[in-house]
Structures are given as C-alpha cells and as structure tokens.
C-alpha cells in the first residue's frame, strides 16, 4: 500500500500519521508538500491534523487553496481514497469534498480526551474490516470539531449511510455525555456519497500501539489497505 500524507504549514500530526503507517503497519509512505502539485500516484491520501496556516480564519479555510489540493481533488474524482483527520476533515468540508462544516466546540474549549466511537456502517473502504456496532477507542483533540449540517443534508447523510462513526458510550449508546464537542447527532465522521472520501475528528494515528493506550485506530487504516488490495486484486 502506497500512502501520501499531505503536509501543510501548521500540520502537527503529519509525523504521527507517517509513523503509524510506516513503522506500525509497515506500509510505503511519502509526504506531499503543500506547495507541490500532486501526481495522484498513491493508493490512499491522508490529510493530517494540526492547524494548517494557523487556522486563523476558520479551521481548514486556507489549506484548501494550497497547490497540492488540486491534485487531491482530482485524485478523489477518480475514486482515490482520501482520509481527512481532524484538521484534514475540516479542510475536506471547506473544500466541498464532504458535506457540512465543523464549528467551535459547544464548550468553547479545546478538548483532549479518549472517546469511544460506534461503527455505523461497515460498507465503506474506511470501516470494511469492522462490523456495524463495533466500538473503537481513540483520542480527540480539537477546538473546532462540532459537526454541523442542515436538516436536509442530515437526511441525505442518513439515507445514503454516510455517517460512518458516532461518539458513543462504553455500551454503544449515544448519549450527550459521550459527545465531546456537541456535534449534531453525535456525528464523529462522515464520507461522501461515492464513499471514497472520509473525514473524522478523532485521531486513529494516535491509537495504533498498545504502548500508547490502544489500537482502535488501526481499523481505519487497515480497512483502507484491505480495500486497495481488493481493488488491485479484482
């Protein structure tokens, strides 16, 4: 599996993603510098977390204009797998690759904690090694992670099974207490209609080793790898 990890000025979790993919999973990884065009020669692209361009206007607002993004948009248009984590999710929403927007946490505070996520659909390249109802643990850390979409969009998301992950409690319920940021309907991650672009606020790359507290994040990366294998094998 060959990965590309985009690096914007202000990306913070790029090294963590690279570490997880390269050293934990043993995959091929290259970084995609924001000023360079992207040639599309990858099996999957990750937009990592951080504060691209300082996130000074709105999170992700400026990164979508980076030269590398055009190539990523084209890549997605041909069905390439694109994963946006945290700031990457914000960028994908700003770029219109994913519906909705990420707004200031309801608490108005940055939140860093472990959360439990309920897998809503396994029919996606990002969750295919899981089963619906599976619970994954990984950390969130963000100040602007409250997912918002209007009622119409929410209906569509539901109709097409685009909500892949929701914040949940230890037994799989979705009470407010399990929701770290006030996201509508406890939504933690959504994909596009075509199911090849996925964004989530939690950080799978920070949950790939037992030493660091658990491996809930591996599901996302290995699902993508399995999908690529399936595609290549087919």
């Amino acid at each position, binding site marked *: 599996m060959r990965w590309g990890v985009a690096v914007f000025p202000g990306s913070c979790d790029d090294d963590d993603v690279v570490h997880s993919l390269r050293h934990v999973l043993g995959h091929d990884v290259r970084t995609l510098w924001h000023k360079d065009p992207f040639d599309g020669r990858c099996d999957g692209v990750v937009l990592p977390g951080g504060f691209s361009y300082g996130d000074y206007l709105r999170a992700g*607002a400026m990164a979508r204009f980076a030269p590398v993004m055009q190539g990523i948009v084209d890549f997605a248009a041909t069905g390439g797998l694109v994963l946006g984590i945290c700031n990457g999710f914000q960028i994908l929403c700003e770029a219109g690759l994913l519906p909705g927007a990420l*707004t200031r946490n309801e*608490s*108005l505070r940055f939140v860093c904690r472990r959360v439990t996520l309920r897998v809503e659909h396994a029919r996606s390249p990002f969750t295919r090694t899981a089963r619906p109802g599976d619970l994954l643990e990984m950390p969130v850390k963000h100040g602007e992670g409250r997912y*918002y979409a*209007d009622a119409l969009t929410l209906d569509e998301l539901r109709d097409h099974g685009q909500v892949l992950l929701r914040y949940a409690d230890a037994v799989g319920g979705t009470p407010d207490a399990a929701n770290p940021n006030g996201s509508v309907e406890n939504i933690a991650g959504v994909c596009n209609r075509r199911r090849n672009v996925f964004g989530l606020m939690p950080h799978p790359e920070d949950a790939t080793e037992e030493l660091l507290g658990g491996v809930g994040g591996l599901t996302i990366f290995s699902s993508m790898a399995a999908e690529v294998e399936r595609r290549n094998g087919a």
Partner: protein
Amino acid sequence: MLVKVFVTLKEGVLDPQGKAVENSLHSLGFGAVREVRVGKYLELNLDVAEAGDAEQQAQRMCEKLLANPVIEDYRFEVSG
C-alpha cells in the same frame, strides 16, 4: 478603499459563543440583554481606485474565503 466585512452565523446555527456572552452579561447585571450573536469583523484596505471595483472584489473574497456558506452569512461596506 476601505472594506468592512461582517461575517455572522446563519440563523439556525447554534452560537455557543453568543450564548456564553449573553450569560456572562446577565450575571454582570445586564438583565435586559436578549439574543447575543457573535461574528467576525474584518477591515481591509483595497488598493483600487473605483468603489465598484472594490465592491466586486470584496464580493468575491467573501465567497471564496472570508465566509463559509454552509454556516455563515456575510455583508460588507465599501467606503472611500
């Protein structure tokens, strides 16, 4: 040309900051305060001669970058 841009949250979008300001004002004794909404205010100088040109550019800047249409409305004023 001076351009002033006002970006506000769309109606229906939760504004926790506005809510927090409202609560604080109440506890400071400003009981008459209702419905606080918090938005952004930008001032920028545009090095163009014509107000019309400035308006056009401001419009495009808002659409492209300054506001996110999913959650925000904008408004701007151009002055000499």
